[in-house]
């Protein structure tokens, strides 16, 4: 059965690259995001997350490679089904909330005004206040509502939590998960802090220095990696016989992150790995990768 035909990917990118002068912000990025997934896009600052999201949003053209959004090459029509909130939630500060909504309604073909109004009522955001006078958390909610009112099939959020306090963060994520539960939307959130996104995402992409280092379903990634602790003098043989992503030795003990098969002898104690530990270990070992396809053990995730 042709998976692609049955389950067209929300986003499919092939060897995407973006260059500024001599500097490649993004290089050789290939990914497939299945419809309905909630994807965490993680990586250190400057890794290329914003560049990637801007390309997916249709704001920048890649220097090389191809990308298909919702099955089409980026064009005006597709743009109306994609919603993007940039870092710092940019809005026209001199407009009131109601006027901002009006702008959104006028500039889009599909618009869910009742949903937007209900959301503002629930969040206690006054419609007649200028956006510039709202708190950062409220501005983030206005920005998110603008995006959701478009009824997008692809929702791209660039560092949505960075400027928010813990309460605002929770309210924001509650809204996003509500939208995810309604179904029919693929969500990509970027952050340089994985813990923000841990319980929210079901897929993970790790970008480092412009390249995709890890890509796959979170459940699969966690199932296929194990944290082993054991004697340092057996670390070498561990490396020889298993796929060790990264290891650190303190005194006589070594702690290693291993992918795939784990040794059966009792010298090594196994524990499941947490998402943050997984991401950090990969980031610290840039020559390692966990990608779908024959190279990696992560199953090819389509949906």
């Amino acid at each position, binding site marked *: 059965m042709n998976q692609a035909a049955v389950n067209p990917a929300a986003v499919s990118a092939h060897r995407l690259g973006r260059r500024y002068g001599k500097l490649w912000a993004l290089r050789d990025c290939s990914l497939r995001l299945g419809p309905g997934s*909630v994807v965490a896009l993680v990586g250190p600052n400057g890794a290329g997350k914003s560049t990637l999201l801007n390309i997916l949003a249709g704001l920048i053209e890649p220097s090389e490679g191809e990308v298909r959004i919702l099955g089409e090459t980026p064009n005006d029509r597709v743009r109306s089904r994609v919603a993007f909130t940039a870092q710092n939630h940019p809005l026209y500060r001199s407009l009131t909330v109601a006027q901002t909504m009006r702008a959104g309604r006028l500039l889009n073909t599909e618009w869910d005004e009742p949903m937007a109004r209900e959301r503002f009522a629930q969040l206690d955001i006054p419609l007649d206040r200028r956006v510039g006078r709202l708190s950062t958390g409220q501005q983030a909610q206005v920005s998110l509502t603008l995006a959701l009112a478009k009824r997008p099939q692809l929702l791209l959020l660039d560092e949505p939590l960075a400027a928010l306090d813990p309460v605002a963060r929770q309210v924001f*994520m509650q809204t996003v998960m*509500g939208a*995810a*539960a309604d179904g029919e939307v693929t969500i990509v959130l970027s952050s340089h802090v994985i813990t923000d996104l841990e*319980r*929210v*995402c079901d897929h993970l992409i790790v970008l480092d220095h412009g390249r995709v280092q890890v890509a796959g379903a979170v459940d699969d990634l966690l199932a296929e990696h194990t944290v082993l602790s054991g004697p340092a003098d057996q670390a070498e043989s561990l490396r020889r016989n298993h796929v060790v992503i990264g290891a650190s030795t303190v005194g006589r003990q070594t702690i290693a992150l291993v992918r795939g098969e784990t040794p059966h002898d009792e010298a090594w104690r196994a524990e499941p790995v947490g998402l943050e530990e997984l991401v950090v270990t990969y980031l610290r070992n840039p020559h390692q990768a966990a990608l779908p396809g024959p190279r990696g053990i992560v199953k090819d995730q389509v949906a």
Partner: protein
Amino acid sequence: MIEFRLDTSSGVPPYLQIVRQVEHAIRLGLLRTGDRLPTVKEVASSLAVNPNTVLKAYRELDHRGLTSGKVGSGTFIEPSRSVVSPAQLKLLRRSLHNWIRGARAAGLTDADIDAFVADARKDIPERQIGEVRRDESGGR
């Protein structure tokens, strides 16, 4: 209605925490037969957690026979024969205390004990709660 809480530092996967909280509530009589569980959207929203996680939890509860879901009308608690009486709980707790004293005397730390229990538990697979009841009444 049940209010869920997730403890991110516990090491227990979120979906399992939800399952256990439902089981716990059923055991203590806080959720009764016919009660409706909140919708996937309600839980996902209030916990700010991936809806698939909630779905997974609900599927597991359904699989264990604790709930049954009808598409469109919600998930309901099934008549369950798994209510554990306070007396049973007290007995179990006492025998566990004895065991722990023995383990401490042997020199196991808290972390060792947790690992030991988790490991030993794998030797005896978890059964459907209805079956446990049958075994008990058959005299154990």
